[in-house]
């Protein structure tokens, strides 16, 4: 039973929601438009930095959120400007390189005053304004079998807010994907030239998609930071790869694919770890080996998914992810 609670707790955790958000952003890029963004973690990181640093400057929380989102938007414009005219894999190389650059800059000693270099920014330095907004009591609250703090860190407050934002963004995706605007993006995913021949400005649409997906990614970053801390190395390439895995797991181009993907991804990771630690003797699999062991499974899952079920759990076989 404990294992089940652990799994459920992971499923509703704010960080699961944060990944769902970032994956919704990636869904705008890949699922809707076919853009190969291999640097979504960079967008998340920019959002986190923009938010945390602004709060540290003493700016109000609303401004801080806007700064985080704006940073991602500017990043998207800079990356998209030259590459969206080139072949698709150039965007992949440039985004992954640029995301790494952001991380290197963030962990650089020369920016320590702002970013805290490789040790990052402690949560306590920027969480207060958000936690003060909490309507929940400032104490541990038990709801059913779950026990969390009302307002602090990974709290009921944060859980409610993040999942609220997830629903909002999923709704946004639904609204846009089913609008004439989304239709143009799907057309671009299928064949750019055909869409050009129909009189649409492909470049501008790709840029819009890149910006929206990146901004939602930054929102994911901010919500992630509110439950954890700002740590450049937690937003490296593996994060982007996990996002891809969970997006493909849930089903690209679907409304709830990223959400379901994130829940499945994190809860099965917890499940695997719990089962392994419960049933595999520790002289065979030491506790420190659990993490890498389960991530090996993630990698293998990604490989198998791509080859055998590219449409994911929710995807339509005819509207494959590829």
């Amino acid at each position, binding site marked *: 039973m404990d294992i089940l609670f652990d799994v459920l707790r992971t499923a509703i955790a704010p960080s699961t929601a944060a990944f769902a958000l970032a994956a919704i952003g990636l869904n705008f890029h890949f699922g809707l438009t076919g853009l*190969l963004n291999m640097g979504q973690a960079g967008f998340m990181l920019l959002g986190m930095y923009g938010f945390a640093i602004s709060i540290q400057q003493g700016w109000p929380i609303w401004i801080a959120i806007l700064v985080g989102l704006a940073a991602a938007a500017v990043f998207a414009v*800079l990356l998209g*400007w*030259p*590459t969206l*005219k*080139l*072949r*698709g*894999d*150039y965007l*992949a*190389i*440039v985004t*992954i*390189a*640029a995301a*790494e*650059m952001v991380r*290197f*800059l963030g*962990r*650089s*000693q*020369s*920016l*320590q*005053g*702002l970013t805290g270099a490789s040790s990052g920014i402690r949560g306590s330095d920027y969480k207060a304004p958000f936690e003060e907004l909490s309507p929940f009591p400032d104490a541990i609250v038990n709801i059913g079998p779950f026990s969390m703090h009302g307002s602090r860190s990974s709290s009921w407050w944060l859980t409610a807010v993040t999942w609220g934002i997830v629903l909002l963004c999923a709704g946004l995706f639904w609204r846009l994907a089913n609008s004439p605007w989304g239709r143009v993006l799907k057309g671009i995913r299928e064949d750019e030239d055909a869409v050009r021949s129909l009189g649409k400005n492909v470049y501008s649409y790709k840029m819009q998609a890149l910006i929206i997906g990146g901004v939602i990614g930054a929102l994911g970053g901010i919500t992630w930071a509110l439950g954890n801390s700002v740590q450049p190395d937690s937003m490296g*390439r*593996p994060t982007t*790869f996990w996002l*891809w*895995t969970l997006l*493909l797991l849930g089903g690209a181009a679907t409304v709830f694919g990223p959400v379901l993907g994130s829940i499945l991804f994190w809860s099965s990771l917890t499940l695997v770890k719990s089962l392994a630690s419960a049933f595999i*003797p520790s*002289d*065979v*699999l030491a506790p*420190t*080996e659990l*993490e*890498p*062991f389960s*991530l*090996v*499974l*993630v*990698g*293998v*899952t*990604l*490989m*198998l*998914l*791509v*080859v055998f079920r*590219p449409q994911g759990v929710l995807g339509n076989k005819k509207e494959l992810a*590829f």
Partner: protein
Amino acid sequence: MLRAALVFVVAAVGITAILSMGGTAEAATETEAVTTVATTGGTNLLIQNLFNGIVFGLLLALASVGLSLIYGTTGLSNFAHGEMVTFGAMITYFLATPQAVSFPLLPFEFTIAWPFWIAAPVGIAIATFFGWVQDKIIWSQLRRRRVAMIQQMIVSIGLSLALVNFIQWWMGGRPVRLVTSIDPRVQYGPISVGNVTLISMAIAIVALLGVAFFLQRTRLGRATRAVSDNPALASASGIKVDSIIRIVWMMAAGLAALGGILLALYQQGIGFDDGTKLLMMMFAAVTLGGLGHPYGALVGSLIIGVVAEVSTVWLPPDLKFATALGILIIVLLVRPQGILGKAERVG
């Protein structure tokens, strides 16, 4: 195009430069993939860094030549190539360490402790075999099923995730040292360098010349270039394209392993994710030189190595990889086909 490039430079480097004024003057040594070799300082700094750059560039070239050959013959951007670098070094450590070792999930330990000069070649041989296995059970199957390149690329991402974590599971999270002795530095004119590093350089140069010899002077090597040029025509000429690709995978894995071993010697230790971290630099090198062009990988690696190391003269050392990636992005914008690549229409 150029305007965009300029904006990027201003954005990336400019912001750093301005903000770094507030940062601490004393920069910590980079511990990522390569430890900065202590420099003699003063006027010789530039020469020393140039030299370090060449050393790093040569080691990088060993790894990226294989990446480039794979891209050239199959069109795949192999994201799991970094793990091949780590794997070579780790398997050598496994064979050479005097400590007890074990396999994951197997509850017994044993000690191999071969001398390094035996362990290294055997490690490379095992890595080469691993290249064969990989192509046999994964890549050749995907080619046969005509799985699209983007899909194959994501499969390689999955493989990378699986391998890097497998290596961590197997070898632990701490960096390991292949040899315990310390390589004392010797001063040659303005350059300070250890003898092991010099030997590593020599081995790297010999191996790279070997690759060049293979490609230019052997029938198999010429067939490899033929497959890179035009797989359909190669097949129509009677070349078994799949066997050539299998050989390329083996060679790439072997070279990456050699690169990993030499890198572990050069930076005095290797961590489970050092190869993964190096992958970005390899991509930068290969793209810079011209995707799929084997000599392009060499040129690109040397440029990346030198840019990364020399940039530390003016920029904080922990930004040297960022600088190298910045160079990559700028080159991509100005010349998408890379330095040696043939101009072709892209998009």
